[in-house]
């Protein structure tokens, strides 16, 4: 997953508006109870922004890691044995894949992988489909599935 323009706007909105709710009433001398309610809302919004930002950073690090595996990893193939989806995230299917991984020097093995994909990609995930994979040379359990 990656942050998009809408996500950046959401983080900015919740962060800035939350901070304003928390601080401005106090600076303006708004009566205690009202200021407390507004401050609570503000803190919650700031926490939401912080959570989104944390998740975005985590996804960025994961993407950078995958890019490294793509550049440095061993190329192999993954044959889709089974594919299905029982949930969606932001209108995108969360695909559960069972794969037969074949990487030179590491033999073949069966693995499971869950990936969030756009619908046009998910609709192509059928048994028998062969996809490229890149495997971390130091840790064969870590791989990037190119779908």
């Amino acid at each position: 997953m990656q942050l998009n323009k809408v996500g950046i706007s959401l983080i900015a909105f919740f962060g800035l508006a939350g901070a304003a709710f928390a601080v401005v009433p106090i600076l303006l001398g708004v009566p205690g109870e009202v200021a407390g309610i507004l401050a609570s809302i503000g803190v919650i919004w700031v926490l939401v922004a912080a959570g989104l930002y944390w998740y975005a950073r985590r996804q960025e690090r994961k993407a950078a890691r995958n890019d490294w595996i793509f550049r440095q990893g061993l190329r192999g193939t993954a044959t889709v044995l089974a594919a299905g989806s029982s949930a969606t995230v932001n209108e995108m299917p969360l695909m559960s894949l069972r794969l037969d991984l074949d990487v030179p020097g590491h033999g073949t093995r069966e693995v499971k992988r869950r990936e969030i994909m756009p619908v046009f990609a998910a609709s192509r995930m059928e048994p028998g489909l062969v996809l490229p994979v890149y495997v971390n040379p130091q840790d064969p359990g870590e791989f990037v599935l190119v779908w």
Partner: protein
Amino acid sequence: MSDVSSAYAELAASRALEQLPSFSPGPLTPLLVEGKGEPLQPALRGALGDGVDGVVGQLAYRRNKTFRFHVALAEVPTATAFAPRVFCIRRGRSTRDDEFYGFEARHSKLWTESTALNERYEVATSPYQDPMWLRQLFSPSFVDWLGTEPPADFSFELAYGALLGSIEDDDPGADGLAALCEATAHVATRVREECEE
């Protein structure tokens, strides 16, 4: 008969295309996914251009408002091995107005090596696309062609061998539809050539 229907009838007559009651291509590309399964209607099947067969039709779907495109669909199965996804979309195109999600699947990255191409289009590929192949596909002559020859509102999406050319004009007339077919066929031929090399 509406203007759009008569334009399709005129195109069918001039190019000997088969008229279909409707055509459901399935969710093959991002634009077709936006269409939420709406069929192409009217739709014609036959030769889009030299050696390229496919279907041309009108895609209309509703989000908060109705979006209308005319699309030409062709197949380039050999492309999947070289480029699972290449999206070359006219800058400023909108395909939905009800998207409020802050996170999306990391399924593409922008390709910005060609300034000339990026003046008119936004080009996105798989994050794990071989850049050499892309440089060969977007040769100077192909970039020049993309910048000057297709209809002004032309875009194309190549996803897992399905190539979808599209224009946004509500009523392009038979000439506009013919230009869409020719442009899509040209892109299909170019992709095929590069896959064979």
